[in-house]
């Protein structure tokens, strides 16, 4: 029996002057298998001045993301970010295929399972009958072969779950944690 696919969803949010991130691992039904989040990090004024514009990317990628990935007992099959995070230039660990998923407003493709490549690192996949296809964007570190492998896993998981929805759940959970702490 094949090992079940694990999807890791990463999200980092800024609440006030604090940053915190969460990593949710789900199965192909979207059911949580693990969820870890960081304590809110509040940079000092001096750190904000010294880091400047690089503070937020550094916090999200070097501090929060790597810390959360170290906590994972088993590596995920796919590492899914928000489109915003990926567009910001993700430079994390390349052990997992890193990608972003985003709901599109494009016309549905012919049938479920079809894929339309709109760029070397971007494609549309049809996961449900009659619905708008899902936009998938891969990180620069994911080559074409890895993209094809990841595409098969996405189709399999997308058959049972909404691939973009867990990111919303992570965001909501982080926000509720911040409110609870404050």
């Amino acid at each position, binding site marked *: 029996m094949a090992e079940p696919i694990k999807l890791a969803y990463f999200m980092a949010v800024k609440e006030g002057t604090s940053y915190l991130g969460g990593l949710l691992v789900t199965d192909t039904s979207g059911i949580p298998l693990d969820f870890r989040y960081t304590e809110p990090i509040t940079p000092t004024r001096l750190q904000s001045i010294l880091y400047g514009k690089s503070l937020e990317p550094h916090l999200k990628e070097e501090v*929060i993301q790597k810390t959360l990935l170290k906590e994972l007992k088993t590596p995920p099959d796919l590492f899914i970010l928000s489109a915003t995070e990926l567009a910001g230039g993700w430079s994390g660990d390349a052990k997992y295929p890193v990608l972003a998923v985003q709901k599109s407003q494009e016309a549905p493709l012919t049938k479920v399972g079809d894929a339309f490549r709109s760029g070397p690192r971007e494609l549309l996949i049809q996961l449900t009958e009659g619905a708008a296809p899902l936009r998938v964007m891969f990180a620069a570190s994911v080559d074409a072969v890895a993209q094809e492998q990841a595409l098969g896993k996405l189709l399999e998981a997308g058959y049972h*779950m909404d691939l973009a929805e867990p990111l919303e759940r992570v965001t909501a959970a982080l926000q509720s944690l911040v409110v609870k702490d404050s």
Partner: protein
Amino acid sequence: MFGRMKDAMADAAETLRQAFAGLTVVEAQPGPFLLHSHGSAALAAEPRAALEVPVAECREMRLLREAVEGRALEPFRTELRAEGGWARWGAEAEVIRMTPLEAGRAARVAVPPLPRKAQVLGSLEPPVRPATRRQLDPLLRPGTRRLDPRLEAVSVVSGLGAMLSMAVPIRGEDIHRLPKGLWMRYSLQLVRGTGENVRNLEVLGLFRIPRKGVADLSHDPRQGRILVRLEPAAITAPRGPFILARRKDDGALLSCFVEDP
């Protein structure tokens, strides 16, 4: 040497000029000074009588009866007499007596000595030179402090419990894509499990959910999915096909797990 002589003569000339300053020059009549020639009368013999008879003249000696004014006893007074010529000259000219030469008023005037060295004027004073210092005081070495800008290691918290409290949407499988035989098998199990007539059942979806640990379940007909709230037991529980159906006569929801072949 000649310079001093010249200065001394200049001083003497200045003294004389001051002494005789203000003299009024009056034009003198030349008459008295003109020579006049007079003819001398002819000598004439004037006969005189013979010797006159001596005549004795008796003189009476008056006694001193009145106090004689003791003029003779008066002390001699000195009288300064000017020379006549000068007086005549002075009638025409104004004699000015030099005050410094008056008796008792004369004073020795100390003539200040001439400077031995002429003072040279006109040269500008040299500008004040700024005070120079050989070196500035060295700046104190500032104390250095080390402030590590690194962000502290962040701690990670497991929040699976919090995540499980959130509803998990599970999409239903497309039953039309299932093999017909498999669907027939599922349908039979649904009828057995619910005890309803298959014609009275409307299948809402086939979902794969954990067989244990489902705390709550609701149906989202608009998106064809169910929302489940799970318990920790659901994490490790096996997933199984779950059929959700509605009874047509009263709309009640029915559900049951079915077995995979």
